């Protein structure tokens, strides 16, 4: 067997690979060693022989947070850490080796990670890297609207937990996952280019012809990259965001609609410490204030496209005034605080309510300074009709996008990555081909139900709050009161939003 020879040669080949480029139809002599088990071939001339092209088990197109989470998760499980992974992303930050410094101004692009995502990260061993950078846990949340008719306060103590979530910058999450993967000994390669096209070799076993060449790549997907590289993969993972190219190439259609809203994102500074997440629903859309630690907070303010453009271009002082108005008592009055201890005849009904139900209404901290640029993003709802196709699977924003009003978007993506890596491990355990449809359909059936349920709820909220109509306002206020005081409902909402429950059922 050539295996012993290959194992001795391939470590050397890897140091040479950074200086060599492999092309699909190259007629020059070159050495090549892709995955550990392929024999080294020295070719003096080649037709388009498939032996020159590197073969990978998984090719992840898109090295964002969700794509890296999948790669890191595969690297952390004993059943899958022998898989060859290729990551295709033209973002230069992936190959950059400079660290994120603490003195850097906080990036406005942040995500709120739920406790379920935190335990996913801890399971992979990546959370320790996140803890080295700025991150902020919060254990309280207050939600109210412009009508002043009601408010709800949530607390982690209601469900006997310590935190409701953690706010982390996106680049910190991405870099932590990359560091975690680099510290493990998984075989991976980052291709700094974009995907151009993808072909799937059909298995022509059923066509009855004898023209099947028994080339080893007969059942693999071939990816052509923009800088001329190409590679084969058993499974192609589309983690390339809402405008996914992989989804287009696989011919998967989507359902969805644009919201008539854009979101402004920026980081602000305030004088008091903030450990609470605030969200106020205004007529045009919600404004959220999320703590980031060190007296910084992140603002996500949703409004119509014209207003968003105006607010982005106005000067800093006016913008801060607008923000303070939106969070304080502009657009409508403060809700009345609940009177503590006012039992009366209904005291027996309120005996088992959560502790946060009796908290006063609080005003968010006053914003003093703008600490970053203002960015504007259009919002839409999108759901891919299928998550899988032959040898292709979609995760993260490539499969679904939601409104940011509940901070769930990337958490759904991390749930997808968790589920897909587990399904791949189960497939490897029973020796199946990881690109086969039966296996991928299991991932789809797991995640579709959960994702659609969450998307429906978020869309419902968005629609319910976009109408300013007297009786509907009173109905919404009644809903606020209901959620605040009916403790089983409140606990269910908190555990569903924290990712502990997959579906919003009372179990």
């Amino acid at each position: 067997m050539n295996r012993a020879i290959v194992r001795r040669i391939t470590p050397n080949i890897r140091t040479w690979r950074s200086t060599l480029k492999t092309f699909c139809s190259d007629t020059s002599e070159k050495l090549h060693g892709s995955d550990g088990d392929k024999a080294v071939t020295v070719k003096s001339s080649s037709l388009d022989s498939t032996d020159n092209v590197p073969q990978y088990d998984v090719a992840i197109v898109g090295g964002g947070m969700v794509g890296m989470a999948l790669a890191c998760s595969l690297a952390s499980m004993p059943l899958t850490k022998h898989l060859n992974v290729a990551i295709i992303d033209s973002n230069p930050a992936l190959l950059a080796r400079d660290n994120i410094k603490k003195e850097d101004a906080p990036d406005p692009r942040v995500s709120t990670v739920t406790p379920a995502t935190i335990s996913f990260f801890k399971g992979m061993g990546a959370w320790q890297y996140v803890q080295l950078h700025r991150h902020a846990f919060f254990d309280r949340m207050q939600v109210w609207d412009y009508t002043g008719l009601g408010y709800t306060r949530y607390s982690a103590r209601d469900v006997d937990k310590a935190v409701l979530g953690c706010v982390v910058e996106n680049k910190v999450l991405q870099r932590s996952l990359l560091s975690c993967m680099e510290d493990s000994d998984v075989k991976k390669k980052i291709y700094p280019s974009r995907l151009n096209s993808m072909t799937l070799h059909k298995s022509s076993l059923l066509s009855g012809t004898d023209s099947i060449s028994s080339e080893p790549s007969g059942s693999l997907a071939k990816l052509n990259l923009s800088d001329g590289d190409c590679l084969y993969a058993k499974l192609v993972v589309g983690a390339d965001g809402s405008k996914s190219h992989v989804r287009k190439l696989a011919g998967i259609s989507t359902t969805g609609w644009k919201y008539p809203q854009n979101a402004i994102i920026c980081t602000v500074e305030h004088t008091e410490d903030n450990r609470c997440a605030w969200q106020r629903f205004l007529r045009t859309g919600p404004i959220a204030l999320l703590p980031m630690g060190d007296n910084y907070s992140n603002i996500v303010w949703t409004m119509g496209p014209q207003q968003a453009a105006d607010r982005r271009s106005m000067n800093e002082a006016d913008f801060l005034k607008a923000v303070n108005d939106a969070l304080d008592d502009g657009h409508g009055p403060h809700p009345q605080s609940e009177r503590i201890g006012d039992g009366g005849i209904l005291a027996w009904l309120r005996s088992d309510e959560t502790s946060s139900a009796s908290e006063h209404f609080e005003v968010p901290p006053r914003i003093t300074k703008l600490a970053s640029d203002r960015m504007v993003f259009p919002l839409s709802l999108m759901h891919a009709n299928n998550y899988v196709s032959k040898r292709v699977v979609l995760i993260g924003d490539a499969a679904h996008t939601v409104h940011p009003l509940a901070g769930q978007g990337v958490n759904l993506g991390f749930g997808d990555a968790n589920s897909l890596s587990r399904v791949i491990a189960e497939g490897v355990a029973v020796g199946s081909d990881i690109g086969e449809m039966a296996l991928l359909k299991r991932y789809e059936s797991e995640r579709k139900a959960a994702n659609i349920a969450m998307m429906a709820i978020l869309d419902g909220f968005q629609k319910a709050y976009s109408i300013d109509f007297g009786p509907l306002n009173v109905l919404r206020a009644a809903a606020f009161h209901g959620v605040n005081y009916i403790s089983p409902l409140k606990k269910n909402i908190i555990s569903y939003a924290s990712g502990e429950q997959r579906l919003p059922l009372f179990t």
Partner: protein
Amino acid sequence: MASKLLLSQLRNITRPTHHRLINPNFIFPLKNQTLIHSRPYSDAPQPPPVGSKPPPTNADSAPTHKKISSSLNQAELAKFSAIAETWWDAEGPFKPLHVMNPTRLAFIRSTLCRHFGKDPYSAKPFEGLKFVDVGCGGGILSEPLARMGATVTGIDAVEKNINIAQLHADLDPGTSSIEYLCTTAEKLVEEQRKFDAVLALEVIEHVAEPAEFCKSLSALTVSGGANVISTINRSMRAYATAIVVAEYLLHWLPKGTHEWSSFLTPEELVLILQRASISVQEMAGFVYNPLTGKWSLSDDISVNFIAYGTKNTE
């Protein structure tokens, strides 16, 4: 485990039962065949009744057997030969096998990792072991075993199956090392091949002389090696499920794929394996959940069941 309890009940059986079906036409009017089947389980060679199914893969096992007409032999082989191209079509006539495959592999992985003392969390636990898949068909079982690291030999009596299996295995470099042979278990015994594990899944119900077949399987196993056999139980529930529902109502399988009289009960299987020096260690059943469409392992061996045994050390 509850299956061990079942096994101890099985071992308490003192004498073999001799099953013979008379005039199946009147009892099972749905059957297409008009022939009487008899499945003698004693080892003494008996003169075959009129039109009985001669042993397809055991044609030259005992030279003292009279030369029998091979009409039904060809019928069984022809049944599979006709649909050979559809082996790898996951939506075709072999769909139930494809859907059941991961569950069977989970049982095989669990028992064989324990038997050979391998790490169950390793990606290739069977590295360095030689397996033979008797009645491999299109290679549905052989390929995953090869991916798990085993050196696999697949044998089948139908030439078309071997061709299909070879073509499909060549598509993936991980499985192109599987050795496919169009031969029978007996011929391999004559070549004195030995394997660490011998697997015969969903084969024994298509064989006319199961006792002889099991003796061949045993001869192929090294001393202290493992055997895995799966088949369908000869119970009323199996008739209702595997034949009436699967073949006639849901059309999962072509009509006539299985014959109820060829099924073996777990007790019979344990006995004939015992006589072939294989002690059955564990047994499990497969149940199908129509709501989720998934198969799972269970203690219910009344329809499909799989048995893992070890060859007695000499």
